[in-house]
């Protein structure tokens, strides 16, 4: 087991390293470079000055040297300076991370609870009308474009009904808890709904399979009452794959968070990455993307370990 964890950690580290190079190169391929922007604000710069600046900033060097240089600073905790925020990247990253974590955690919890209830309910009678409705709803959840769902919610609840604020995290001058919650309702609902569909289908499939297994039949035959069979015997087994899939869905969850934050103007990681790419804020975009990758890799690691821990049949 310890070997397994160690190996997976090393693997994750390798993936992170490769990804950091890939993303670094890709960012370099985005329009403009840091110097263009500097030249724009200094129209008097002569070609000689530009060349000198290129040298100072190391832009005349091949990409892998620049990458190694960046990596070396990054490992020492220096992620560079955010151009748009005029602050070190870490200072911008930290509060954004907190906003995103909050949004994702609440939505994830809601999605899990909702999908467990719906999935189990549907699995009790496969092919029944509950199952049909739940399946339809789950497919709808998988198929709806997240940003459009957000748009429709804004259209209905903010524009038409005036029930909820369309964007931001709080009204200016109003620091009350209710105001804060009101701003969270739509982003959280959108993100939760976007993930419930997939989870529900998985819970349902896993439950149906488990309920068909012999030890469940035995538990029924012994005269256990049905709710006990379902909740105690079946659920425990059905949850093993479900937990893994949910932990593995972090990447999807993050992609959803990016959209939700952008649509509802939540100052989180997703919106920060999006804005920094639009604004050519290279350092911030790079660090944001790598951070998202790192957290995704970590959550996958946790999923792997949890799987081995929950399922004794797997020897690691």
């Amino acid at each position, binding site marked *: 087991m310890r070997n397994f964890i160690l190996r997976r950690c090393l693997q994750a580290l390798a993936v992170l390293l490769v990804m950091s190079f890939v993303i670094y190169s890709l960012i370099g*391929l985005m329009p403009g470079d840091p110097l263009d922007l500097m030249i724009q604000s200094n129209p008097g710069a002569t070609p000689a000055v530009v060349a000198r600046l290129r040298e100072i900033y190391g832009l005349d060097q091949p990409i892998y040297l620049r990458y190694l240089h960046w990596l070396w600073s990054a490992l020492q905790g220096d992620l560079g300076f955010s151009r748009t925020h005029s602050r070190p990247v870490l200072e911008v990253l930290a509060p954004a991370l907190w906003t995103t974590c909050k949004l994702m955690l609440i939505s994830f919890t809601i999605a899990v609870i909702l999908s467990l209830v719906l999935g189990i309910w549907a699995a009790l009678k496969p092919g029944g009308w509950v199952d049909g409705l739940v*399946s339809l709803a789950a497919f709808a959840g998988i*198929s709806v474009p997240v*940003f*459009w769902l957000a748009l429709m919610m*804004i259209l209905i609840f903010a524009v038409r009904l005036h029930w909820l604020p369309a964007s931001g995290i709080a009204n200016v001058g109003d620091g009350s808890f209710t105001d804060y919650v009101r701003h969270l309702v739509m982003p959280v609902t959108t993100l939760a709904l976007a993930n419930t569909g997939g989870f529900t289908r998985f819970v349902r499939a896993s439950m149906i399979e488990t309920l068909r297994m012999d030890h469940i039949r035995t538990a029924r035959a012994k005269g256990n009452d049905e709710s006990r069979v379902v909740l105690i015997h079946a659920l425990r087994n059905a949850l093993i794959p479900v937990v893994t899939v949910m932990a593995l869905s972090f990447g999807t969850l993050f992609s959803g968070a990016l959209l939700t934050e952008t649509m509802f103007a939540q100052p989180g990681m997703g919106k920060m990455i999006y804005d920094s790419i639009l604004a050519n804020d290279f350092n911030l975009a790079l660090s944001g993307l790598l951070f998202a990758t790192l957290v*995704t890799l970590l959550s996958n690691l946790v999923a792997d370990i949890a799987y081995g821990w929950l399922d004794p049949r797997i020897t690691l």
Partner: protein
Amino acid sequence: MRPDAAIGVWTLRWRRFRKHRSGMASLVILAALVIFVLAAFPLQQILGIDPDTTDLFARFDPPSPGHYLGMDEAGRDVLLRLMVGGQISLLVGLLATLVGGVIGIIIGITAGYFGGRLDGILMRFTDGMIALPLLPLLIVLGAVDLTKLGFSSDFAHSGAAGFWRIVIIIAIVDWTAIARLVRAATLQIRERDYVRAARAAGASAGYMMRAHILPNIATPIIVSFTLTVGRVILFESVLSFLGFGVVPPTPSWGNMLNNAQELVTTAPMLAVWPGLLIFVTVIAVNFLGDGLQHAFDPRSER
């Protein structure tokens, strides 16, 4: 009468599929959608309108005879743009799935057939790919400046480049599901005696994959392709919506929503239609995949 089993198998599957109500319904809906987007051609002729011509005096005109869904923020016919945009969105969905599918099949079949160290490397690569948050990666790929890759500025800013760029970038991130599926299926098939017999007769790896492995793993691939099309259409809409996909004036269901957030108060229907069409398409595609899975699964005989 000559008994022909090739038809027999497919007849059987068709019968099973027909009993799958939601699958059948989605097939009808998809057919209707295809007819809808193709109707752009005759509609253009009959009404004498063009999807790209702007008319600043007709901005936000309400529905009228000749413009059944009214005009958009640039005074273009909304219905016609929905049809033409649908062609683009569906085409991107199919092409990106196809290209990604080919990548996935090649990687999966190679890993599964040759096994060993090559399998290890390819599958670690695939796992790494699956672990990534796709949307941010797609955005970065969408933001890449093609002139820095050596393409001419004219090409980089052309509509064709925008179209192919999105096909390619979706394809290079969305092949992992098919690769894993193909690998698992290949591992099973390559141990069959008919594959051994061909190997004993001196067949090359290429022959084996073409003649024995691919035909025998075709059904799960078809199902997986179907589900991928749905996902790709969603990706296209998101990227185009964020401004990294199909570039205006070429319409797509995604980029028609570009300005929707600002317009949601003035012209809400402009935000409703494209999204609704994406939603209906993707849900129909997903139900179709579900139906196909049911039809292809011999255990689902009831």
